[in-house]
């Protein structure tokens, strides 16, 4: 299939309508500490959150976080403001198997975990009780990887955005064997492909393409990219300078619309939820249409009914965000 046809495939994945959706918001849970991951459990519809600063993964039941996996390692992200973090991206391989990207260890020691989640009512397990845990250690002229920020699951792999080696901007790939991880390797050198740093948000399109959001430099606004790759061979299909600043999450609604959240580090008052649409004057151009402001959004996931769950760091007293985090539910999106 030639390049133009691939572009057509890719562009079909962006909204053909320029209408911005009308959305409604609900705070599902609050008092979280720098939540950085969210996933909806298949079959049950339960929402899980990486309550990162509290070093645990929780299940939200009646608006309250219940501990599921605890005792992750801790680290600090940023040099001012600073954010305490632990577990980052989370995603379900199946109803009972949760993959968690670590954020609390040094690069090279950071782990990607697979857990069998305890059922509702069962006691929490510890991070050390993972079914499997893998790292990307340094090698000859290869730097160790860390900050496994977000995860995207396909039929046969888990793709992980990594923020260790800033000369490469790796998206790594893990394969599974039952409820365990079988392998974990560096896969896409996104910075070499697009010359912009920091792959963070990642998702899989309805057609099975990997869609990666490059955050770029946190000190530079509007340098974010959205890039489409073919997962079986890593070939880049299309790259859009989307005009967002710091993409922290990407997700497709069940209706096939692509959404992004922007942390907008340089000026967090401009952060928010965006629908990514095709420019009405140039079909080869994609642009963001703001749906809503959000206070430092970090992760997003749709459920099967089209409800969007978003975690936000929120604002506390000064730079203290230890209880300011929220899980939001957004309905009415296309």
């Amino acid at each position, binding site marked *: 299939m030639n390049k133009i046809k691939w572009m057509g495939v890719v562009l079909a994945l962006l909204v053909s309508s320029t209408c911005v959706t009308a959305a409604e918001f609900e705070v599902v849970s609050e008092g979280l500490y720098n939540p950085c991951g969210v996933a909806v459990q298949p079959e049950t519809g339960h929402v899980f959150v990486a309550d990162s600063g509290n070093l645990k993964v929780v299940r939200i039941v009646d608006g309250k976080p219940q501990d599921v996996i605890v005792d992750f390692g801790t680290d600090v992200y940023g*040099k001012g403001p600073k954010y305490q973090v632990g577990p980052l991206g989370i995603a379900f391989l199946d109803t009972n198997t949760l993959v968690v990207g670590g954020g609390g260890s040094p690069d090279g020691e950071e782990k990607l975990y697979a857990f069998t989640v305890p059922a509702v009512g069962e006691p929490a397990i510890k991070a050390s009780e993972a079914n499997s845990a893998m790292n990307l250690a340094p090698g000859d*002229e290869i730097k160790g990887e860390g900050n496994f920020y977000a995860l995207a699951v396909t039929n046969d792999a888990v793709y992980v955005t990594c923020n260790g080696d800033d000369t490469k901007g790796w998206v790594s790939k893990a394969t599974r064997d039952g409820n365990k991880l079988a392998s974990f390797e560096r896969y896409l050198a996104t910075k070499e492909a697009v010359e912009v740093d920091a792959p963070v948000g990642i998702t899989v399109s309805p057609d099975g393409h990997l869609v990666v959001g490059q955050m770029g430099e946190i000190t530079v606004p509007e340098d974010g990219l959205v890039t489409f790759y073919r997962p079986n061979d890593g070939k880049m299909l299309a790259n859009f300078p989307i005009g967002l600043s710091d993409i922290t999450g990407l997700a497709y609604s069940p209706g096939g619309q692509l959404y992004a959240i922007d942390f907008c580090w340089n000026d967090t008052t401009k952060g928010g939820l965006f629908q990514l649409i095709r420019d009405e004057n140039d079909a080869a151009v994609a642009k963001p249409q703001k749906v809503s402001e959000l206070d430092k959004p970090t992760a997003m996931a749709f459920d099967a009914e089209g409800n969007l769950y978003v975690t936000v760091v929120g604002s506390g007293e000064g730079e203290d965000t230890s209880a300011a985090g929220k899980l939001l539910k957004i309905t009415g999106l296309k």
Partner: protein
Amino acid sequence: MFNRGFAVLAVVLLAVGTLSAEEILDLKVPAGLKPLKIPADNPLTEAKVELGKQLYFDPRLSGNNEVSCASCHDPKHGWADSKDRSVGVPGERLGRHSPTIINAGYQRFQFWDGRAGSLEEQALGPIQSPAEMNMNLDTLTKKLNAIPGYRNQFKQVFGTEVTAENIGKAIASFERTVLSGNAAYDRYKAGDEAALSEGALRGRKLFFGKANCSACHAGSNFTDNGFHNIGVGIDLAEPDVGRQSISKLSGDRGSFKTPTLRDVDRTAPYMHDGSMATLEDVIEHYSKGGIDNPQLDEEIFKLDLTDQEKKDLVLFLKEGLASQNYPMVEVPTLPE
């Protein structure tokens, strides 16, 4: 009928003639560089670039008629200054080293602390600065309007008399044409395997690998356009806080804009304070892991480069990033 027809033809010819003078300049960028974005409200034309060049080299834009943009951003010195700190109209050294304007059109921000969001905005800053060119803009526009050569050019290019805004636009337009590319690195990347010497090839590998340079000096212009604290000057009693003075974020303390490395061999001395005389000094700074401080960028760490690796890296910078067609510009005839 004949007279009316002739009048119509005359109007058409006049319109065509006018359009030709305003024809947009199709700027051909050197190999290795991406197309340059030109702001919609300041399109490039030949006449505007020429006007901007004259303004750039004209010391009459300063309060004492002795300092021009080129005084501190000199084409003979990589469009930067060979002094660590330039000297302005009052005769005192400035606070920071004058950065190169090479490829400045690709930069997201201007000045070391990024306080200007465009070349147009930046151009007017030094003119007004009491420490630099020390010229009030109202005084300047009156001065230039009194020079027929400038007044006529501004009329032709902008359709107005000399204004401060259009001074900035003209200078910015000229600066957008100061481009460096088509270096040995670009030719090697395009397939010419003989373009880089063996030492430069080893240096290239280090640049994109062990030496971690491309963590920040990335992309076709060798800059991520971001701000980083690499520790330079942070150990002074009153360090220059750089970007923090603009962003007000504590994490930006001591951070400065990543400069381009195109033609870097010509732009010594280096760093925001001009404190490093040679590229060897620069490599040494990075090899030892910068100067530790609470905001030191996570990409700065001890590299433990060998002496040979340091030489190879310097060779790559000198040989690999030197433009085959360095943008040298001679001082133009200035209008009277």
